[in-house]
């Protein structure tokens, strides 16, 4: 029939290039003229109401869902405003609206992973200077959210690393990112942003990935201890805490999929064929919203079987996260109680160090997206170590309290709601700590 014929012809249509794309083109619409399929799908990251058991594009509020995190991040931005990421389309909007960027903290470094204008501006000002600037001074230049230029070379459309941070992290490990295979690039473009990072003091606010001792959680802790880095000192226990941010690539690397060379794009940007033309689905989202195209390519099981399995893997991790949080929160209060009993800082130092490690381990899993699916066994390993260390802190604290004459358990305050937890923080921050011991 005609329609069969038409589609036979479609199949052989080449990709035609309409207009040249400038080397700093940050406007996705311009790219879209040449690549309408990819552009149309990219625009779908505007969708913001999809929901899976743990993910989806709807911006979940971590702090409403789980007040314990308010305590864990006491005194810093994440205790005020912490949502789950959503579509790339919103990167700019969200970074400019988050309460985390309240004064005094206003590093321009925060733009780095939010806009396709970044490569140009970095090129114009220089990398050091870019990071060192004030966030609001660059606001006018940041007009496009994450886009084509972040991952593609406009001349060849080849995948390209546009951010210096990842290149430097490879160098720090003695590796050369230019040697990465095509399949590796299908993950590395994501690793420009979906990685744990910190802002170096010198050069000022310089974006750095803590990979010098390896990408694993132990390696990062060793590195942060060596350079003696902390994002903040916990107001309740005076513990120097490291905040983890989305170590997605790092955790993924330990999983079976990475082991089998399955890339981020394989799951989050599966290929599509329309009328025989094959292209990459640029609607980046939770693969659970697109199982039949994403997973079923390799897993010949039913959609339900796949979803059920993923959810059970994630639920296992979610439960372990809560158990670790409980132990860590109590450990913070146990140390605070010891302080109230006038236990000397020298005696508390080992406890704080262990608690710092326990909390970073927990956060390494908590802050990484996918609720542990990217590496199920590794996630449980790290959480097991986290809870073990936190409880060890509590054993030591109980003994120190005993020496100080306190034999009862501390009177743990009520943190059952976000507001209550927040008030508890304020009390400690305002040097009017709640009395934990008799």
């Amino acid at each position, binding site marked *: *029939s*005609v*329609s*069969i*014929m*038409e*589609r*036979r*012809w479609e*199949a*052989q249509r080449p990709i035609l290039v309409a207009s040249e794309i400038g080397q700093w083109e940050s406007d996705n619409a311009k790219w879209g003229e040449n690549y309408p399929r990819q552009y149309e799908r990219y625009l779908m990251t505007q969708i913001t109401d999809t929901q899976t058991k743990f993910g989806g594009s709807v911006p979940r509020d971590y702090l409403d869902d789980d007040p314990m995190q308010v305590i864990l991040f006491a005194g810093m931005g994440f205790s005020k405003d912490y949502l789950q990421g959503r579509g790339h389309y919103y990167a700019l909007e969200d970074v400019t609206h988050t309460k985390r960027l309240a004064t005094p903290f206003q590093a321009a470094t925060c733009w780095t992973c939010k806009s396709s204008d970044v490569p140009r501006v970095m090129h114009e000002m220089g990398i050091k200077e870019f990071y060192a600037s004030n966030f609001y001074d660059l606001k006018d230049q940041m007009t496009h959210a994450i886009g084509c230029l972040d991952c593609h070379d406009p001349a060849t459309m080849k995948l390209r690393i546009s951010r210096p941070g990842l290149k430097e992290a490879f160098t720090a490990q003695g590796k050369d990112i230019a040697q990465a295979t095509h399949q590796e690039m299908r993950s590395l473009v994501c690793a420009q942003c979906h990685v744990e990072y910190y802002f170096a003091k010198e050069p000022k606010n310089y974006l750095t990935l803590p990979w010098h001792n390896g990408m694993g959680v132990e390696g990062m802790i060793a590195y942060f201890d060596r350079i003696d880095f902390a994002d903040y000192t916990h107001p309740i226990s005076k513990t120097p805490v490291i905040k983890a941010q989305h170590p997605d690539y790092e955790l993924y690397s330990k999983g079976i999929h990475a082991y089998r060379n399955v890339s981020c794009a394989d799951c989050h940007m*599966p*290929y*599509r*064929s329309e009328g*025989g033309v*094959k292209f990459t689905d640029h609607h980046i989202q939770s693969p659970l919203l697109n199982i*039949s*195209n994403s997973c*079923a*390519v*390799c897993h*010949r099981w039913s959609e339900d079987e796949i979803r059920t399995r993923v959810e059970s893997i994630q639920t296992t991790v979610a439960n372990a996260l809560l158990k670790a949080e409980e132990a860590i929160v109590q450990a913070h209060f146990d140390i605070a109680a010891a302080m109230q009993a006038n236990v000397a800082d020298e005696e508390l130092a080992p406890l704080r160090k262990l608690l710092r490690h326990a909390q970073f381990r927990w956060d390494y899993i908590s802050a990484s997206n996918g609720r542990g699916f990217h590496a199920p066994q590794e996630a449980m390993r790290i959480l097991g170590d986290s809870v073990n260390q936190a409880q060890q802190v509590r054993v030591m604290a109980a003994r120190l309290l005993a020496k100080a004459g306190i034999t009862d358990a501390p009177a743990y305050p009520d943190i059952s709601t976000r507001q209550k937890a927040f008030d508890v923080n304020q009390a400690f921050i305002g040097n009017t700590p709640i009395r934990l011991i008799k």
Partner: protein
Amino acid sequence: MIDTQSNAAYYSDMVGWILHLLGLPGVGRFWQVAIYGLVGVAAGLALLLVRISNAASYLSNAPETCMNCHVMTDAYASWQRGSHGRVTVCNDCHVPHDNILSKSAFKAMDGARHSTIFMLRKEPQVMHLSSGAVPVIQQNCVRCHSDQFQMIRLSDSTQQTCWTCHQNIHGDVHGLSASPRELRPALPQAGIDLKKSGE
């Protein structure tokens, strides 16, 4: 003997349906075969809504016929490069070989469904065997390989199919986009080709 339930179901459906349609119980074997063969084709035609040439070619055995639809090209590419590419054609596996009746009936049914879906552009990105197809294929695996088993009971059931383990019959990755363009066959000529005039 394979997966007796669904097989029985398959036959009673098929035969029962056609018998009911034509109400010809107890006619001679020759006529049955002939008529049922035609009915198969007719049903195919009726539902196919494509030119005779295509319908006929759909019923032929040449893998190229499957290529009338580009959505089949990945399956073709993976088959051609698998160890079976040298020793089998699609229909060795994909249609029953116990008797011509079920063969043509099965073809007609499948062909009809596939072409309809195809023209409605409703084909999924990643296809799966229809439940009816599974026992048919397994039976074909056994048909060729039975002499290689010693009492392998797995071959009597599809609780675990042959390709549960031998996953690479069509390669490890499935789907319309699975095989790169280079590995795909050029689409064959089919009747009056509108392609040229279309360009």
